[in-house]
């Protein structure tokens, strides 16, 4: 399959079309909206479902060296990508130190919904992946926050409120934020109950998954449009970063995944984890820790530039790269 064919298969999936519908409706200022509580409920559903699925998959596999290496790779990406992003944001996007540190933290962390969308894409292409990557995803949520705060205090004299003044609150925000607890918790539940134990809840968590993802992406489209309309701080340099950083990070992730011996589907998902940017956990932590960094910069960049790029173009692009790297078909 060529890149064009892979991209078309992705773009014509119901989930991506639902995202496009939300985006267009939002940009056209339609009064279409998804109730806030429903959006949050769907996010909980998707995170629980993907966590459970990963746990069940791991319960059926033997732990091995590749699993340990995948965890280390995830941590290396989580700690390393913000350092790269920070340099690019300072030099190319010309952001001040605090803003660059805050944005870098977003690009070192991950987006669960991008992962879920990629997982569905991988399934549609017949690509299997290692279930423990869900746990790797949860591990990758937080290191970038720590690195972002370190960058701000190391390189910025006016780094806002130092993390130490926020004490336990910030630490709790970083390590016990809802998405991490939910992903890890559901993963452990799946691991404990196994395939047969998860069978009774499968109609909810398997059967409805694709439909809920559609509705959730519709909401994400609406949110992205709203963020795009209010994004006055996005210069072309910053937008360019939001578009070239994901493929760059994905290439690094792919190379790492291939080096440690992950499957082609696994490599695609690691690439997506590397490429995606957080818009839930990291913004909340950055608001507490770096108040001088404007959320009007990093939320639209992550949610309205990088997220749409990844789900529409990035995923098939990384899949094609993975296929090329593994010498197979996308």
């Amino acid at each position, binding site marked *: 399959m060529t890149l064009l064919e892979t991209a078309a298969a992705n773009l014509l999936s119901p989930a991506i079309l639902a995202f496009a519908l939300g985006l267009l409706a939002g940009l056209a200022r339609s009064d279409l909206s998804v109730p*806030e509580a429903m*959006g*949050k409920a769907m*996010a909980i559903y998707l995170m629980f479902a993907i966590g459970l699925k990963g746990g069940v998959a791991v319960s059926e596999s033997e732990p091995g060296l590749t699993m340990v290496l995948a965890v280390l790779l995830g941590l290396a990406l989580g700690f390393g990508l913000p350092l790269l992003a920070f340099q690019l944001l300072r030099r190319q996007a010309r952001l001040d130190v605090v803003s660059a540190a805050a944005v870098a933290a977003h690009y070192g962390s991950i987006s669960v919904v991008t992962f879920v969308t990629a997982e569905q894409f991988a399934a549609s292409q017949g690509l299997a992946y290692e279930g423990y990557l869900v746990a790797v995803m949860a591990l990758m949520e937080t290191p970038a926050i720590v690195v972002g705060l370190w960058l701000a205090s190391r390189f910025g004299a006016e780094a*806002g*409120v130092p993390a130490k003044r926020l004490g336990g*609150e910030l630490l709790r*925000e970083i390590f016990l934020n809802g998405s991490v607890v939910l992903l890890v918790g559901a993963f452990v539940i799946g691991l404990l109950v196994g395939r047969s134990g998860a069978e009774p809840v499968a109609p909810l968590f398997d059967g409805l998954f694709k439909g809920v993802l559609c509705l959730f992406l519709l*909401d*994400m489209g609406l*949110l992205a449009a*709203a*963020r795009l309309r*209010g994004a006055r701080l996005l210069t072309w340099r910053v937008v360019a970063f939001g578009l070239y950083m994901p493929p760059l990070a994905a290439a690094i992730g792919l190379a790492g995944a291939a080096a440690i011996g992950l499957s082609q589907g696994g490599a695609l998902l690691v690439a997506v984890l590397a490429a995606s940017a957080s*818009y*839930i956990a990291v*913004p*909340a932590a*950055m*608001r*507490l820790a770096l*108040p*001088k960094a*404007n*959320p*009007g910069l*990093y*939320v639209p960049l*992550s*949610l309205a530039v990088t997220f749409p790029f990844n789900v529409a173009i990035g995923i098939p692009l990384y899949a094609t790269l993975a296929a090329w790297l593994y010498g197979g078909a996308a």
Partner: protein
Amino acid sequence: MQTYAKKKLEFVVETALMPRLVRLVEEQGAKGFTVVPTQAGESVDGAWQRDDIAPALGAQMLIVVVDPAVADPILEAAYALLADYRAQIFVSDVEVLRQDRF
């Protein structure tokens, strides 16, 4: 009917900060408080919207009614806490019926 003079303090602050602000007013002697969500707004620091999946842009409002002697310590501590953050603080005189509750 007999009424009693109190101070009503209203804070519109970023959602992420609300737990710390609530703890602060309780530590300073407030006997109760109310937190209400906001739909949207704008100040000199920029606009905010209702909290959605990305919570960093949302704001909430804290309403607390206290004895005038308690109001100043709360305001001083809140001012220090909120110095670097987007926030609006309102102080007004109100009358209450049940003095022991505030």
